[in-house]
């Protein structure tokens, strides 16, 4: 003799009357609300040598199915089970599933399940569910051994190499379409180029200018504090000029542009890819590389040096202002010191890098856009990955330039 009572689970039930007469007709049992107004199910199990008799009462619905299944699991599998459903007030698909599963288990064990007292509704639901019980084909189990671990490392290495090769491929694609555009100027989309110049260049001016100004201020302030100790305040001009012109102006501009433009390229191209617009373009004889990549990347190549120059000017301006306030170096003196003490090669060393960074940002952004698949998550993932990769690649290229310039003494 065993009696199991499934306890009330959800606290929200407490406010409701135990039974709602509107739904009392057995005909409608299974179509009443699930989440509210339910009486917890109650299972009484009587076991004899010949058979087990279960009396089920209350709501057999989704919130209680976990407990119902737990009760069913305790049943002995060596004799017939009789289930009396006449006291059941609610019966939904999950309950039908629980009973159908129990029946399958009993039949596998050579026994059977007899159901009594089920109304027309539960009866027909039970039948549909029994007919629909999925045939489960277990998925192949992947073993997590040493070989798989090594294979995972190998495959991620291959992916990394493939990724770099693909980027180089996209760069080549851009160059070939650019050459084609030069040879067939009529096919070139000038309007798109101007539009993208405005988007990536003109609209980025305020943020780039503000960033460079603040960097100039910070450099002057930090530099003067250190240089004061040696009485070499005046060298703050050289410090600001060299660091801004050679490195910081263009590098920080590129990072900002990578953040706002690489992501924009990826999102725009990616959402076109997602909605099959790229395929539509191909079917109309439009080359996505010529129509989408060339105007975008070319706009970046044209605009980034200009943005870099603006950053240089604003950085020097911020530095001069701070040097004047903090160290009393007048703007005229700053100017003289700047012109005499700083070689123009510093500016050249900075500006040479701009087109290279622009190419990196543009190619990474367009490539990531084309990797978007037809789900929303991949668009988000590729957008953030394009920004990270673009910034990382820009900094790495900057390091390579630094070593190269140091070696050749530029």
């Amino acid at each position, binding site marked *: 003799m065993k009696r199991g009572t499934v306890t009330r689970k959800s606290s929200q039930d407490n406010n409701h009357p135990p039974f709602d007469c509107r739904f009392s007709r057995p005909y409608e049992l299974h*179509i*009443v609300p*699930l989440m509210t107004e339910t009486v917890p199910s109650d299972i009484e199990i009587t076991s004899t040598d010949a058979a087990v008799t279960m009396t089920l009462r209350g709501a057999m619905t989704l919130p209680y199915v976990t407990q119902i299944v737990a009760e069913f699991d305790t049943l002995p599998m060596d004799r017939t089970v009789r289930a009396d459903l006449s006291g059941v007030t609610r019966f939904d*698909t999950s309950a039908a*599933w629980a009973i159908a599963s129990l029946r399958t288990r009993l039949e596998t064990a050579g026994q059977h399940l007899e159901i009594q007292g089920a109304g027309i509704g539960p009866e027909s639901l039970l039948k549909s569910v029994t007919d629909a019980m*999925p045939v489960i084909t277990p998925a192949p189990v992947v073993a997590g051994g040493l070989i798989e671990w090594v294979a995972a490392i190998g495959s991620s290495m291959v992916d990394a190499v493939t990724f770099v090769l693909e980027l180089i491929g996209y760069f080549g694609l851009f160059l070939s379409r650019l050459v084609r555009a030069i040879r067939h100027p009529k096919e070139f989309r000038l309007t798109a180029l101007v539009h993208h110049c405005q988007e990536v260049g003109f609209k980025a001016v305020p943020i780039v200018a503000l960033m460079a100004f603040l960097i100039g201020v910070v450099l002057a302030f930090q530099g003067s504090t250190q240089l004061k100790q040696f009485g070499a305040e005046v060298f703050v001009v050289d410090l600001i000029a060299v660091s801004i012109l050679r490195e910081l102006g263009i590098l920080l501009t590129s990072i900002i542009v990578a953040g706002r433009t690489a992501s924009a390229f990826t999102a725009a191209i990616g959402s076109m890819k997602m909605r099959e617009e790229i395929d539509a373009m191909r079917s109309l004889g439009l080359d996505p590389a010529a129509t989408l990549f060339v105007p975008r990347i070319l706009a970046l190549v044209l605009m980034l040096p200009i943005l870099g120059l603006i950053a240089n000017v604003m950085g020097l301006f911020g530095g001069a202002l701070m040097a004047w306030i903090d160290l009393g170096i007048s703007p005229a003196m700053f100017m003289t010191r700047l012109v005499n003490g700083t070689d123009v090669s510093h500016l050249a060393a900075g500006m040479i890098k701009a087109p290279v960074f622009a190419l990196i940002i543009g190619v990474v952004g367009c490539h990531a856009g084309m990797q978007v*698949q037809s789900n*929303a998550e991949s668009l988000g993932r590729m957008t953030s990955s394009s920004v990270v990769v673009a910034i990382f690649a820009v900094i790495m290229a900057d390091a390579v330039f630094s070593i190269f310039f140091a070696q050749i003494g530029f």
Partner: protein
Amino acid sequence: MAKDINQADREVVISIRGLRNQFGTQVVHDNLDLDIYRGEIVGIVGGSGTGKSVLLRTIAGLNRPAAGSVDVLGIDVLSADQDDMVDAGANWGVMFQDGALFSSLTVRENVEVPMRTVDGLDPKIRRALADLKISMVGLPYFAGDKFPSELSGGMRKRAGLARALALDPQIVFLDEPTAGLDPIGAADFDQLILGLSRSLGLTVFLVTHDLDTLHAICDRIAVLAEKRVLVTGTMQEMLKVDHPWVHDYFHGVRARAALDTKTAADVATKD
């Protein structure tokens, strides 16, 4: 209105009174009334731009009308607060036109999403129930592991229906369930809806242009025109309405073809 007297003893599950929907200056619905009874399959028809989908979205609480009242299973959808709507959400399911499945989840995970709101449901049981729903809408077992983008349009619709049915709702809203399906697939889907509706006791609110669907499974048809529900009734009653649009709709070339198919099918069953 003789029809309503016959149905007076039936329980009204959706009741719309004086509904007005407008976007800017464009009025889509004005003073629209509609009652839906428990257990019936209602087909909503109307020309393009008559606001069939807007009506569906309004009843499901996804669109706020300018005026009127919408009462679903005793809940006033328009004044219900967030908690009421969450509870009520278990009582109805919506199948959007292209399934509107979450693209980053597998089909099984999509079906499990509504079940996650149920406290204390064992994940293993949840998974098994999701597999059951997937099977009930006629998808093979392996479809559960696929992402929506890997399925055909028809399979996505079935998966969308499985998600709409996840919590055993009392009402399902279907937005053009057979649009874009081949005739065989569409007929299968009609029978699926009919079968599920009868075995689960579902009330089905169906927006469709498919005359075969209207013939095959709809208990009642509601025609949206002139910014309101112009007329409701069975297919036979629709054929007698002499409003020009309704007449054209149900007596056009395609309508006659659908009627012929239906008559032929009925004869075949009788034999």
